[in-house]
């Protein structure tokens, strides 16, 4: 297994950035105001771009600088801007009816992180010598951001929150893949970035249709199709 071997300073730098991203995911989980989610998401994308640039520097992979730049542009600036526009058009400010209180959601998220840690340990055991703790950290953060993303999809009913939950899912994968496999083909990474953009554009259009025809963007009201 070619595991990336980082010098200790770099390892702790990446570790700090990864944990900060996880913390921002929890901020997204625990807040009610849609604008807060979006800022936290933008900041998280900037941190991930920093990780990409750092890995590009340490592993001597210059394409990662391009990936970092595109991440900042698309995920860090353009996506929040698009979502802000959707927010303004939909006149949605915050979650009005909570399915689960933010406090309980935070505790559930913490349980998810513990589960992710257990899985990461299992994988590290199976791989033999993991090389450096940043590998386990990357695996844990990746899996726990997945779990937090799914938690957000389940307990939030506003359309925008569900979109942001999907974005957290993809952010988690991106974060993990940057640290674990710095050599992933450039084509895949670029297309994932663009694909995210197209997805958000589609979501925007759909959310507009939802508002026009169903009268609401809250999924609690979407109950016509049953059985």
């Amino acid at each position, binding site marked *: 297994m070619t595991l990336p071997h980082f010098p200790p300073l770099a390892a702790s730098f990446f570790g700090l950035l990864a944990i900060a991203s996880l913390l921002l995911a929890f901020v997204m989980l*625990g807040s009610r105001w849609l604008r807060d989610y979006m800022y936290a998401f933008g900041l998280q994308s900037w941190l991930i771009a920093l990780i990409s640039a750092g890995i590009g520097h340490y592993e001597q992979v210059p394409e990662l600088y391009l990936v970092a730049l595109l991440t900042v542009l698309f995920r860090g600036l353009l996506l929040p801007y698009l979502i802000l526009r959707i927010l303004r058009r939909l006149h949605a400010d915050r979650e009005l009816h909570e399915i689960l209180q933010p*406090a309980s959601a935070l505790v559930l998220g913490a349980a998810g992180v513990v589960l992710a*840690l257990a899985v990461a340990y299992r994988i590290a055991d199976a791989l033999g010598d993991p090389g450096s703790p940043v590998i386990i950290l990357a695996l844990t953060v990746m899996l726990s951001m997945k779990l937090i993303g799914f938690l957000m999809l389940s307990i939030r009913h506003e359309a925008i929150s569900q979109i942001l939950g999907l974005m957290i899912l993809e952010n988690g994968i991106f974060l993990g893949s940057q640290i674990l496999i710095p050599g992933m083909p450039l084509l895949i990474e670029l297309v994932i970035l663009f694909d995210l953009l197209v997805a958000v554009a589609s979501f925007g259009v759909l959310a507009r249709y939802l508002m026009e025809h169903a009268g609401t963007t809250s999924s609690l009201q979407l109950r016509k199709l049953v059985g």
Partner: protein
Amino acid sequence: MSLRDILLQIAQVAAVLLLSPLLQGFIHRYEERVQRARGPSLIQPYRDLWKLFHKELVIPEGASAIHFLAPVVAFTAMLIVPILIPVLTNFPLPLSNMGDILGGGLILTLGGFFITLAGLDSGSAYGGIGSSRSVMITILAEPTLILVLVGITLLANSMLPFVVNHLLVGDLSVYWSPAHVFLVCAFFILLLVETDRMPIHSSTHIEVYMIEEARILEYSGPLLALVRWASAMKQFLLYTIFCNVLLLPWGLSIQGTVLGTLGAAVAVLGKLALIACLVILVETAQSRLRFYRYQEPLAASFLLAALAVIANQIR
């Protein structure tokens, strides 16, 4: 067990006893100052205590022995804790092996528990409300506190606060590690909760929705002085643990000389003033929340403590 050590131990307890009203005065004065009022003088709590000790003792009709017992127990508990934690010196003194971090937390809680009992014992409506509310918050705060203490223990591989202090002073990479940062944040939130400064109520007597002050409404005279002093000491102790063990572990006397001890006392006051300013800022900057949102800061603190434990495992 030399004479110097015994004197240092007594000096630590005396420092906590004598300096805690000063901290209380500092917080009150600058809280008012931030809100553009003049604020009471810094030594007003001393004057209050003097006045209360000279006042008549009035006891409610339904009070039992707990009414007399609780202030004494709380005061004594607050006197025991300074023996266990680093207040002025950074080396363990005799008798500091009586308890570790968990023991210190237990004794602090014991004092609070007796005051809660006293609130129920008085039979008044406000006392009951105060006790029930404070217990409701304690149900969430105590497990979080234990998790934070577990995190501190795992960080230093030891349960003695002195070892933690040495580790953080000596190894800068541990000081800046994510585990430590999360523990500091989690403990700060708990600090706000335990000293009754959560943004869900106002910490004066005037409002109906006070939490901890309501428990002691039926007290008067010297008993009230003891209770007030005990709560001021609890605040001082929590701030001291926060500073000397976690956040600012520098500035403690290393050799135990008189000059060093005095310098440490001044340094402690300086550090506590800094934390007090931070607390005042946090409390006044935030608008009051609905009562049931008390879960949110506590859930955030629990989360941070859990993340600290996890980050420590991966360190």
